[in-house]
């Protein structure tokens, strides 16, 4: 099938449908409105159901109910709406319900702005909700990758009974790029015997729940969750590396920012400065090893975490580098986007300093 130009938001929605998503519950917010809008027209065609919820809080709890009934279900929002969903998200993680949540991030804090940002990294990866839990966080850097990751997100969610967050930004959502919808390789997924669909008199009643009033039980539940998270770390960590060989400085960047970093790498190359890139594709599980290896690499003098935030992922970079090399940060925030030039200058400053 030939490539077609797709707008990020609409491509994400279509990818979900192709992945068998039949239910979508959401609430409007810029810059992700094309996702619910597309779903409202598309889902009825596949016998699914789109519902505009009264709020993000209601939307995430509708997702809870639908996921608890075993459906492939998605919701999407942008930063403020995702903050409202935090209680629902920790319930979903606690009850181990598979679903896909899309956050097309905008500037914050508060009402902030509507332009692209990456300042929800902490919320996404460390858990914005209460309690010990993890979301699988996928960070596409192009519309094509968004399409591929969204389709896989549903499989990951079902395989581990865990919510998966697709973290984009206003650029991913709004821009058009050529897309080819390709089948993701099928995983063998467990049957959803736990789903509430009526007992049909054939089994004990199923219960979807996150309450464990006996603390010993609650702790056991947490231990089980973290066994599962270990599995996910083992199987699902993804990273792209670029130009690391002989690199003096390694940029770490995800999503659209990584593309800007690549431009910077190429112009630095023209000036004879070797820079490389580590692009986490999964923000959780985080690709610590790739960074550790780069940190051990002799040529590498320093790391530069480039983000559209005041410095959030840089903490995970530091944790991975663990003191072996200096780790620096360069970021723009509030809807401002780093320029290749800005990154280049920062890199030179650091290497100048590191010399």
């Amino acid at each position, binding site marked *: 099938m030939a490539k077609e130009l797709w707008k990020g938001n609409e491509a994400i929605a279509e990818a979900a449908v192709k992945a068998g998503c039949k239910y979508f519950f959401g609430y409007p917010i810029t810059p992700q409105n094309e996702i619910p809008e597309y779903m409202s027209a598309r889902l009825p065609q596949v016998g699914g159901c789109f519902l505009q919820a009264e709020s993000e809080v209601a939307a995430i709890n509708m997702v809870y109910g639908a996921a608890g009934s075993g459906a492939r279900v998605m919701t999407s929002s942008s930063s403020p709406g995702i903050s409202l969903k935090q209680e629902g998200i920790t319930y979903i993680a606690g009850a181990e319900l598979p679903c896909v949540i899309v956050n097309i991030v905008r500037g914050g804090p508060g009402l902030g702005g509507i332009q692209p940002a990456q300042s929800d990294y902490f919320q996404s990866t460390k858990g914005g909700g209460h309690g010990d839990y993890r979301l699988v966080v996928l960070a596409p850097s192009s519309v094509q990758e968004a399409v591929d990751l969204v389709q896989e997100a549903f499989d990951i969610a079902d395989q581990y009974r865990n919510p998966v967050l697709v973290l984009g930004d*206003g650029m991913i959502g709004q*821009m*058009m*790029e050529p897309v080819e919808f390709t089948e993701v390789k099928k995983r063998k997924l467990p049957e959803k015997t736990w789903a509430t669909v009526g007992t049909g008199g054939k089994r004990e009643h199923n219960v979807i729940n996150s309450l464990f009033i006996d603390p010993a039980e609650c702790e056991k539940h947490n231990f089980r969750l973290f066994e599962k998270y270990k599995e996910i770390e083992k199987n699902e960590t993804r990273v792209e590396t670029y130009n690391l060989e002989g690199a003096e400085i390694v940029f770490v960047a995800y999503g659209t920012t990584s593309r*800007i970093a690549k*431009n910077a790498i190429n112009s630095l190359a023209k000036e004879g400065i070797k820079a490389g890139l580590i692009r986490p594709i999964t923000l959780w599980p985080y690709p610590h090893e790739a960074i550790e290896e780069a940190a051990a690499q002799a040529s590498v003098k320093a790391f530069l975490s480039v983000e559209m935030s005041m410095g959030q992922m840089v903490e995970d970079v530091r944790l991975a580098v663990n003191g072996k090399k200096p780790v620096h940060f360069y970021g723009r925030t509030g809807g401002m*986007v780093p320029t290749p030039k800005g990154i280049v200058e920062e890199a030179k400053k650091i290497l100048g300093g590191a010399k």
Partner: protein
Amino acid sequence: MAHEIIMAGFGGQGVMAMGKILAEAALKEGKNVSWLPSYGPEMRGGTANCNVIISEEPVGAPIVTEATAAIVMNRPSLDKFEKDVVPGGALIINSSLIDQKATRDDIKVYYVPANDIANELGTGKISNMVMLGAYLAISGATKEDTIMEIITEIFSGKKASVIPLNKEALVRGAACVK
């Protein structure tokens, strides 16, 4: 060499459509492309703009900060984007609505009376196609034929009648910069 274009004007001047058509054509010619619109809340009368990148390599950042060409359809857009053109790059000005001249001399500047031409052709609506025609003539970013293929796909069916008009607009635009 990659084409990195900024297209800007009033909402309603068709800059978004112009950008999409160009991107579609480039894609049809097997190039790598990206199209990035400005977006915002419903506040009318603002300037709309989009970035189009056409390249043999995979597209890096979809934002154009160093434009090989800027197509400006109104005065605020000229003020805003003239500085973003790379030295030697092209600045195409809709002289029908912009009396102002460009201030830089390290870039190639073209004045295209797009609205006047469009009005001559009978509808101001296609001033964007006039500008696009001029841009193609200057940059050769895509073949004019490919653009026409895309336009033909868009206006299939009963709207087909407007196809020749668009063709004409492209030609007239190109003529201005020959």
